[in-house]
């Protein structure tokens, strides 16, 4: 039976790409797919694109290619990535430039058409997926990105043209991995259970080490060699059988727990996990450890794909200023709470138009808030106060960011570890919506570029 091995090369923008090289050198993979785009990542890339129109794709894409391209090319391993982000064409051009410099002949398949920002005002009834509210003129006018989550088909088209690299924008995470499987086996997109199996492979690989022991909730302290944690590999058979494992001689672990943890990650309703290619029903899935660090996934069911594409629109929605200062025992929390009071008074006196002022105590309640356990609160060794404000304008946010500085001398004792002027953060609102497929499909283009 024909088999294909696909590696998960990245789990997010900023992930290490050394394991991708390991995978290419030692693991007999035919494809490595790199998933780069979280909602937050698009926001970061949008800021890059605003600063420089030639930007908007991930900045580590070219350094990564530099490391892996010649080794991948030598072995005929194809690379697939949505690192193109908001500017896939820019990423493709930069990749061609790099290949030229390295003296390599490469062929790139560029997938475009997910970016609908330019046409947003022409689209009607973009109601919010969650609330049902209709989008406003104001949001359309302010929007900084608007991308549809497109599926695997255009990548399959590109692979048919015998490209070395496929570069896309907002292709849905799992679709990046599904595409080479469909291409290898010539599966039909109507063969729903098989498309669901390929999608499951993708979903399990898209967050890289989150399926090999990274961010693992159960006995994480017992996991071996986490400093050398392996990246995931899916072995898929032509009949849809699916095995999850990891790079050779690596640390980490692949077992029932790590696989079920990633399988359910961010899926909401596990009976109806929506992707552009198929609706995945996980309710019959069985996971079986078939060898050390190998888990077989069976019982995957596919149902027809959702009628529409998901689209994510984002728009500027204010700023955040923050200031951080620490205090030590004795009375660490009491000192920090006193400083919070002082700062609130100063903000009042300055008449700063802050919409929302909040205090978090790092080391006590900044994560679990009201659920934090206050048993030992009087005896804390140290505590950091984080004051934060949501504002409409950048100037006010900057005032919040420097508001704590004078308190190094004029507040409670032992103020220490003042974390300087924290950079103001631009906040973005999100508007998830649905869009007719044909409106997007007619714009999708697969462009072949060569050097």
């Amino acid at each position: 039976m024909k088999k294909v091995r696909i590696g998960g090369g990245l789990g997010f923008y900023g992930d290490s790409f050394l394991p991708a090289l390991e995978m290419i050198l030692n693991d007999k993979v035919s494809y490595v797919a790199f998933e780069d785009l979280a909602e937050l990542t698009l926001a970061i890339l949008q800021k890059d694109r605003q600063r420089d129109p030639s930007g908007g794709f991930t900045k580590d894409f070219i350094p990564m290619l530099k490391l892996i391209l010649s080794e991948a090319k030598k072995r005929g391993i194809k690379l697939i990535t949505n690192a193109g982000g908001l500017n896939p064409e820019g990423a493709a051009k930069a990749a061609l430039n790099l290949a030229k410099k390295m003296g390599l002949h490469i062929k790139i398949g560029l997938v475009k058409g997910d970016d609908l920002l330019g046409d947003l005002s022409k689209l009607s009834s973009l109601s919010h997926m969650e609330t049902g509210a209709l989008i406003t003129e104001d949001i359309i006018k302010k929007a900084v990105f608007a991308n549809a989550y497109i599926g695997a088909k255009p990548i399959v088209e590109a692979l048919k043209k015998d490209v070395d690299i496929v570069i896309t924008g907002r292709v849905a995470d799992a679709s990046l991995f599904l595409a080479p499987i469909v291409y290898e086996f010539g599966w039909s997109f109507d063969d729903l259970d098989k498309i669901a199996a390929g999608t499951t492979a993708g979903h399990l690989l898209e967050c890289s080490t989150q399926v090999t022991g990274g961010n693992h909730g159960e006995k994480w302290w017992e996991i071996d060699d986490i400093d050398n944690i392996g990246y995931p590999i899916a072995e898929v058979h032509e009949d849809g059988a699916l095995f999850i494992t990891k790079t050779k001689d690596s640390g980490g672990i692949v077992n029932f727990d790590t696989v079920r943890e990633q399988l359910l990650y961010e899926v909401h309703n596990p009976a109806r996990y929506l992707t552009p290619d198929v609706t995945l029903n996980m309710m019959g899935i069985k996971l079986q450890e078939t060898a050390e660090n190998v888990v077989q996934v069976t019982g995957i069911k596919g149902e027809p794909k959702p009628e529409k594409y998901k689209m994510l629109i984002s728009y500027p929605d204010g700023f955040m200023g923050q200031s951080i200062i620490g205090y030590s025992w004795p009375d660490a929390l009491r000192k920090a709470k006193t400083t919070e009071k002082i700062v609130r008074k100063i903000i009042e006196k300055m008449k700063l138009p802050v919409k929302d002022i909040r205090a978090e105590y790092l080391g006590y309640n900044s994560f679990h808030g009201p659920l934090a356990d206050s048993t030992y609160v009087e005896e804390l060794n140290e505590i950091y106060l984080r004051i934060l404000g949501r504002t409409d304008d950048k100037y006010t946010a900057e005032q919040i960011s420097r508001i704590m500085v004078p308190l190094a001398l004029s507040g409670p004792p032992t103020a220490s570890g003042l974390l300087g002027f924290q950079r103001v953060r631009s906040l973005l609102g999100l508007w998830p919506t649905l869009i007719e497929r044909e409106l997007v499909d007619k714009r999708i283009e697969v462009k072949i570029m060569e050097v």
Partner: protein
Amino acid sequence: MKLKKVAFARSSDKGDNVDISLFARDNDGYILIRKSVTTEKVAGHFAAFGISEVERYEVPNLLALKFVLRNALEGGATRCIRADNLGKTFSGALLRMEI
């Protein structure tokens, strides 16, 4: 006892929602969490976080429960000003629950 004794969890963001998976270690554990970690109980547990609605899904084949907390992130990770704007620590916050 605390839920942490019989289960582990992972959580993250999707838009304005926090998505939590809760895993039992064996069948008995699953029966226990299915009975004791109800939608209402989770909604009450996170009441102070401004969550509008909690959905629960049972996944017996993976000995797991899933929870979707709506309106949990001040509009989403790109707009949320909390230290944990990605909802990663909601898993631990759920494991604090007394059952």
